[in-house]
């Protein structure tokens, strides 16, 4: 994946450059807005990492100019936290994601990969399967495997599992799950979701992956 890194602090820039390169990304970097615009045009990056406070042309302007120029490259904005409305400004101006400084390096890498995948998906490439522990779910078919053994799941259980595996360790609200598991059924009782959870939990019992209930809120899946 080709990254354009626009960041004015030299220490931050060289550290990020090294870290991202080590993770197999190809990194071009620059420290001011004017050069960023030129580099963006020339190197055709897959994802742009953009610091907002730049000398000369500031980050938001770089972004707006690039978008006016028709560049559809996914952009992740980095900036100092604490100013009201930063987030809104960032996303309204055509950015795809936003990470306040200071951030976790792993978080940055994960977000960059997600943006890169999103760009790929637009090119009709099949997505990677979802994985938690020994569990794997194919995105297109919804087929679930535990160490290459197919798990026999009803369509509702499969829908539930896929929804939860989208963000492992993160709870999904039960209202949202209900919509995903019972998409077109109006007269199903709200509690029906609990039955599906109960059955899925039993089927996952031997996998080491557990399905946790946050009562009144939702469910999550995690590698125990």
């Amino acid at each position, binding site marked *: 994946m080709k990254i354009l890194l626009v960041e004015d602090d030299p220490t931050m820039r060289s550290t990020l450059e090294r870290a991202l390169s080590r993770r197999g990304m190809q990194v071009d970097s620059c420290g001011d807005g004017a050069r960023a615009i030129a580099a963006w045009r020339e190197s055709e990056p897959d994802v742009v990492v953009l610091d907002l406070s730049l000398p000369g042309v500031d980050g938001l302007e770089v972004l707006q100019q690039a978008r006016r120029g028709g560049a559809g490259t996914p952009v992740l904005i980095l900036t100092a*936290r*604490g100013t*009201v409305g930063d987030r809104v400004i960032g996303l309204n101006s055509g950015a795809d994601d936003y990470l306040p400084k*200071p951030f976790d390096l792993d978080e940055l890498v994960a977000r960059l990969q997600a943006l890169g995948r999103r760009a790929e998906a637009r090119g009709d490439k099949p997505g990677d399967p979802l994985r938690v522990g020994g569990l794997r779910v194919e995105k297109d078919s919804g087929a679930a495997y535990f160490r290459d053994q197919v798990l026999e799941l009803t369509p509702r259980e499969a829908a539930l599992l896929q929804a939860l595996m989208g963000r492992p*360790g*993160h*709870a*999904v*609200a039960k209202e949202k799950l209900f919509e995903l598991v019972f998409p077109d059924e109006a007269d199903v009782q709200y509690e029906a979701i609990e039955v599906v959870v109960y059955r899925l939990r039993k089927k996952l019992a031997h996998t080491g992956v557990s399905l*946790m209930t*946050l*009562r*009144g*809120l*939702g469910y*999550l899946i*995690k590698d125990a």
Partner: protein
Amino acid sequence: MKRAVSLQRYLLLGILLPVIGLIVINTVSLYAQALAAVNTAYDRTLLASAKVIGEQLDVEGYDDESELRATVPYSALEAFEADNRSRLFYRVSSLGGEMVSGFAELPFWRGKLPQRPPYAALVDFYNDRFRDEEVRVAVLLQPVASLNGRGMAVVQVAETLHLRRTLARQILIDTIWRQALLVAVIALVAVLVVQRGMRPVRRLSGQLKARTEGDLTPIAAPDAPRELLPLVDATNQVMTRLALLLDNQKRFVRDTAHQLRTPLAVLKTQVQSALHGDVEPRQALLEINDTVERATVLANQMLSLAKVEQLRQQPDAPVHDLAEIVRSVALELSPLIADADLDFEIATRTAPVRSHEWMLSELTRNLLHNAIKHTPAGGALSIRMLTDANSVALTFADSGPGIADGLRARLFQPFSPGDARSGSGLGLAICHEIVRALGGIISLENRAARGRILGLDATVRLPLADNEG
């Protein structure tokens, strides 16, 4: 921009304009009165001279056939001339206007006799022209009788107006001088009094201007007039509040610097120790990472505190459903709940609260974060919401060790030592500030049964937004 009203100008104009107006009216009426008095006096002299002429008339024949004769020596009139510039002229005529004696150029009187109570005789006074000069004329209808006749004579005596005019002008000038002097004296007194009256105000503003930048001590104004005391009091109250605020900020900055130095000191020690090879590099870096994490949390929390203050000053907060915000924060923090395998439960109900969304989610995030941190792995943690007509109570009930009674009040202060267990010591201070900004209350109560502490209930009570909102 509107120009500031000058009290001094207002007072001066307020006093002087009416006074000057009154004096102008007074002058005009004084002059009119003087003029009337002068006219009356001179008219009387004119009448007297007419009477002298009238007495020297002779007549022959009766009534319509009467023939008047006059022998008026000029000396008879000379006695009535006031000075040598003022001349007297006369004319004696019959009732029909036939000239008998005197100056023919003096036009005959063709008026009507007015009712003049002051004069018993048949008399009138009027202005006319004689030899291109304005004259005042007295006319007297004098019955004349003799041994062989009886008739009516019209005696006119005219006097040039020169003397009257001179006198009137003199009176006018005298009056104006006197009134002008009066105005000048009043203006001087008014200016002096107003200036003197304003002196405490000027002195007070001088005192305030001369202050050094950080001087917030109360103003001492022992000689300020009673009218200024409310202003002095109000200013002193503002000063006191500012001083308190400034003290708080100074303490906050001092504490912050101290708090930020601590992780830096730890970091330095960790780095030097690692450089010496005391620990494995990986172990050292993990420890350093923890320290940096602590400093980051602290910096973020300080920004949050500043943001509460900033949002508090923004009017017109929208209405948000607290339940929705609490649920989304719980979803956001669900990985922490999952990591600790907590026995989690949440029960919410719709509660419209007027607030910036950030305040409510920051409040919830801090309290839930604390509750998760203090609940032992596998322990119970519940979020409850109760509403009544006017308020909503949001409770985070953990199953942690609770808090010591002595600490409870101090926990909401920034960097209170008791909160050290929860990290930087700003989380509860942020909550306290947010709740205060929203007009609510926050309390921490240990939940106990049979003398054993089961956990801590952190409860926030906030006013509900009005229904029309």
